């Protein structure tokens, strides 16, 4: 049984006046049916571009994407429409991801119509059922997006994604714009839906505490590359890549008996345009040695299911 999603050496480059921008570079991973891959990283790491490339809102420059064993990297036309019935996306900004002029029940009805699976007469009922599923009050179903708060708008976005009946949903920072207490509500919803419908997720976020809860495995990205990938619980217990260590150490903890000791990173993010071949993190890495900036880093399996892209991983972690 092939995994649901298999990504091999996926790259996405953009041509910009200054050269070639490596937004996503040689990324590989697999996602099993009904499981969640968390993708974490800070601004500029390419996680959003990765998500959009998987759902073909962008087209990959190189590499392959396999859905249930089938190559969907460059499909078009009707094949692409089929793919979209299986692979969907929930966006980050609840304010700009809904058409301000459509009532929310129309927004949800549209994908149902596009899927071509249901006769006209059934559309309203199915839209209603979806809104029940995501928890939108009956009295609000005729509203315009601007009449609802962020949390409810995200539920609409989730219902819209579910309407196509997907097996896999890219969740692009779905709770980052929401208040803390609402975040928990929406995360629970996503997890419930996964249990009920067996849908797999790629959960993109910069918030490590959120990703821990919802993911089965986690991928840490830096400047377009995956630097570490392992089962989610293991990342917090045994993190091996220097960037992951720095990232985790920087999270302000609510434990007042444990003052933060962030690992200081030198300098700023380097440019993703025409990057040099070596490790992209080396200019800022506290463990960098001479060879780091010359040797291209490869993801190596350092422990069971635990992959790290660092040439000094064993020395650093003893």
């Amino acid at each position, binding site marked *: 049984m092939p995994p649901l999603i298999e990504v091999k050496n996926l790259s996405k480059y953009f041509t910009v006046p200054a050269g070639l921008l490596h937004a996503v570079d040689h990324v590989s991973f697999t996602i099993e049916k009904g499981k969640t891959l968390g993708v974490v990283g800070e601004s500029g790491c390419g996680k959003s571009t990765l998500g*959009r490339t998987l*759902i073909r*809102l962008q087209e990959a420059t190189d590499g392959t994407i396999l859905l249930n064993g089938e190559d969907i990297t460059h499909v078009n036309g009707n094949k692409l*429409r089929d793919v*979209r*019935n299986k692979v*969907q*996306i929930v*966006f*980050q*900004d609840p304010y*700009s*991801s*809904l*058409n*301000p*002029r*459509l*009532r929310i029940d129309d927004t949800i009805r*549209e*994908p149902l119509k*596009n*899927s071509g699976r249901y006769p006209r007469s059934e559309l309203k009922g199915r839209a209603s059922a979806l809104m029940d599923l995501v928890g939108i*009050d009956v*009295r*609000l*179903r*005729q*509203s*315009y997006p*601007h*009449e609802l*708060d962020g949390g409810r708008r995200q539920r609409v*976005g989730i219902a*819209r994604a579910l*309407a*196509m009946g997907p097996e896999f949903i890219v969740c692009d920072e779905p709770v980052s714009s929401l208040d803390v207490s609402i975040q928990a509500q929406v995360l629970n919803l996503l997890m419930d839906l996964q249990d009920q419908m067996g849908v797999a997720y790629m959960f993109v976020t910069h918030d490590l505490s959120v990703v821990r809860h919802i993911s089965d495995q986690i991928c840490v990205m830096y400047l377009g590359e995956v630097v570490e990938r392992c089962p989610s619980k293991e990342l917090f217990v045994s993190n091996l890549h220097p960037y992951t260590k720095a990232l985790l150490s920087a999270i302000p903890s609510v434990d007042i008996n444990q003052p933060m000791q962030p690992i200081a990173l030198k300098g700023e993010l380097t440019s993703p345009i025409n990057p040099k071949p070596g490790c992209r993190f080396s200019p800022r890495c506290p463990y960098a040695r001479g060879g780091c900036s010359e040797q291209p880093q490869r993801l190596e399996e350092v422990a069971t299911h635990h992959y790290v892209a660092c040439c000094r991983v064993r020395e650093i972690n003893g």
Partner: protein
Amino acid sequence: MTTTQSVHTEARPIKVAKSSLLLETLQRTLKSPGAKVGTVLFVLIVLACVFAPLIAPYKPNDMDLTHMYSAPSSLHLMGTDGLGRDQFSRLLYGGRYSLALGITASLFGAIVGVIIGSFAGYFGGRTETVIMRLMDILSSIPGLLLCILISAVLGKGFFNTVLALAIAGVAEGARYIRAQILKERSKEYLEAAEAINCSKLSIMFRHLLPNVVQPVLVNVTMGIGMVIGMAAMLSYIGLGVQPPTPEWGALLAAGRSHILNYPYLIAFPGLVIAVTIFAVNLVGDGLRDALDPRLIS
């Protein structure tokens, strides 16, 4: 033990959804006093012209040869011209042409402009470049001159004048819509529409356009005034609508040579044109304020 109530209902009172967004916009427009005045005036003028057969004391081409060039009197409210035709009646009937010209040409120009501009804005790349360069060429010729040119090529008469005036407005509409689209293009709901398998055309017309077209309504409204003025100018110089059609500009043109002796022949048409343009601009202003994004949401 005190009874504890486990309350888990929504704290926020549920608001019932409002009616259509369009209605809301119209309501907001009419809040401004200027828009109220403008709308009333404009509606009165339109109604007067529509009901011309009921209001006008004479037919527009009826000649009263006993009262040629007569000054305004109880018999002829706005005087008569050299052929004894009642000016008031001619203005009322003429308004039908002028208003029709104004509204049709303005709408037509805007619609074509919007469609062209949408393709340019949404598809970008070469499509955009080709279209926008064509629009640049079109708008490099000053508006009135362009009208004159097209009118001279197409010939005189009502429909040709509508065409000439519409074409002049296309470039502006296209450029405006393209600018609006460039701003809106990066919004996620458009990507979302693509992700749920909406066709490119459906995204353009069902999702993108409704969200950018509102400011164009302002242009269309103000455009009516401008077109009426331009039509008048065309007639004035001998193009556009021709006598005996009592279009307002034609009336102005006819009265031109008698400005010293019979000033009322040019004063009344001029006044009516001015008031109409004024009313239309008031409504346009009110609409623009109503559409101000700061007030929406």
